[in-house]
């Protein structure tokens, strides 16, 4: 029995290129007056992507820089809306990208747990129940009421990881593999991720480490210029990707 977790149908995404965009009211008004105003240029970032992910699948996404890997993850998480095509996702998505973006350094650790948890989509009451286990995992019980700016960067990363992974999500999205904190904490993180890996969580991971993709994902997707070049068994996909890179 398999169940569909994610379905992308004919997803195209056009994005404005940022380089030539003038972020300037004065300049824009002047250029309109001079008749030199141009519509901002747009670039096709994802081109007719079709993708079906079954529940519990672990999928690695590979490709060169700028191929659209992170963009694809953003479309799946709902951060970006596709220009055309449809995205259907069943289940709760937990993004695990660059931890700590949601923290406010001025307020206390406990307040930040509530803030970050609600930003991630959990309810306040749910987060209140979990404060203890989060503090416990992050080893920050003694720092409950200290503002986050008083923590070391390693502690902040630990806190971010602990909040984001305290509840087992249905779909986990990893942009580059995590390396958080010191050696002992990294082991702890690894164990938790491994637990997710062994469970029914659907995992999508972007990585440049081919070894990791081969070992941990059954399926891999190779993106080039916003197209799915090849998808299938991770060993095969990694092999053809590496072949094509060495040929150049």
């Amino acid at each position, binding site marked *: 029995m398999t169940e569909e977790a994610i379905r992308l149908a004919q997803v195209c995404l056009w*994005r*404005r290129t*940022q380089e030539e*965009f003038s*972020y*300037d*009211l*004065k300049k*824009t008004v002047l250029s309109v007056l001079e008749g030199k105003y141009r519509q901002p240029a747009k670039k096709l970032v994802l081109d007719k992507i079709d993708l079906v992910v079954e529940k519990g699948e672990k999928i690695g996404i590979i490709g060169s820089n700028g191929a659209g890997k992170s963009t694809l993850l*953003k479309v799946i*998480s*709902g*951060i*970006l*809306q596709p220009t055309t095509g449809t995205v259907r996702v069943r289940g709760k*998505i937990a*993004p695990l*990208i*660059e931890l700590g*973006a*949601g923290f*406010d350094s*001025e*307020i206390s650790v406990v*307040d930040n747990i*509530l*803030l970050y948890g*609600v*930003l*991630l*989509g959990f*309810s*306040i009451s749910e987060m209140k129940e979990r404060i203890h286990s989060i503090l416990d995992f992050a080893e920050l019980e003694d720092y409950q009421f200290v503002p986050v700016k008083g923590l070391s960067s390693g502690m902040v990363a630990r806190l971010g990881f602990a909040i984001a992974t305290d509840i087992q999500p249905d779909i986990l999205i990893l942009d580059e593999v995590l390396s958080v904190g010191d050696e002992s904490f990294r082991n702890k993180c690894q164990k938790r991720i491994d637990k997710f890996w062994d469970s029914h969580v659907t995992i999508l991971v972007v990585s440049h480490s081919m070894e990791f993709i081969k070992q941990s994902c059954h399926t891999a997707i190779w993106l080039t210029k916003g197209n799915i070049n090849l998808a299938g068994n991770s060993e095969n996909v990694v092999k053809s990707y590496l072949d094509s890179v060495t040929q150049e």
Partner: protein
Amino acid sequence: MINLSLSNKYISADARHYIELLQVLVSRNLKVRYRGSFLGVYWSLLNPLMMTSLYTAIFGVTFAKYYDDSVINYILAALTGLIVISFFSASTTQALTSVVGNGALLNKIRLPVSVFPVSMIMANIFQFLIGAFPLLSIVTIVKSHSLINVVAILLPFIALIMFCVGVGFFVSALYVFFRDLPYFYELVIFVIGISSPIFYPAAIVPQAVKPFLIVNPLSPIIESIRQITLSGNLPDMMLIANALLSGMLFTGFGWLYFHRSRSQFMDLL
């Protein structure tokens, strides 16, 4: 408790998440702003109070004749006007940067973008309710001896909120596209401030210029609040309706612009 769970059933999960987001963001704003300051939320009253004493010191005696020869009346008129203006300027200026300021976050987590400007305005509402509102209530009780008037203050205040929400939506969206907006917006606030009859009586403005003052959307709000707090009469429903109507118009317009440009935000954040 039963009531709470019932009402929870009727609102969707998205709406509940939105409300909880507002809750944590507003409390974060207030905590950051007032952490370690001994006056706390009452800092927000300091600005209008100081400006009032400044204006009174300079113009009080000269303009008193327009206020039934009473400097006290001048003080109260200036204070009510300044409370409105400082609410408007603080809440919309904070809303302006709120979307761009949370750009990094919006790129990592899917969030309803409008919570950011709305949370800024809500933090200011909270400040108003525990800072300026009690002050206005005392003035109203002294002047009108009527609790109806105290409650009625909230009506033009709701109009003010709607106006600020509309403007907040508009400028926060515009700032995504034009990063030099704060300089222009400072000027806009100055113009709106000076063209509202706050520290001068409307009567001294030349006839030819008056129509421009009426266009100022804050005028009906200030007028209505003054009528309720200072005149001693029962609230004038026409003034209130006028203020509410223009408030609604601005909210509608601001939301429309925000909503229509929202799809382009992510390319520029």
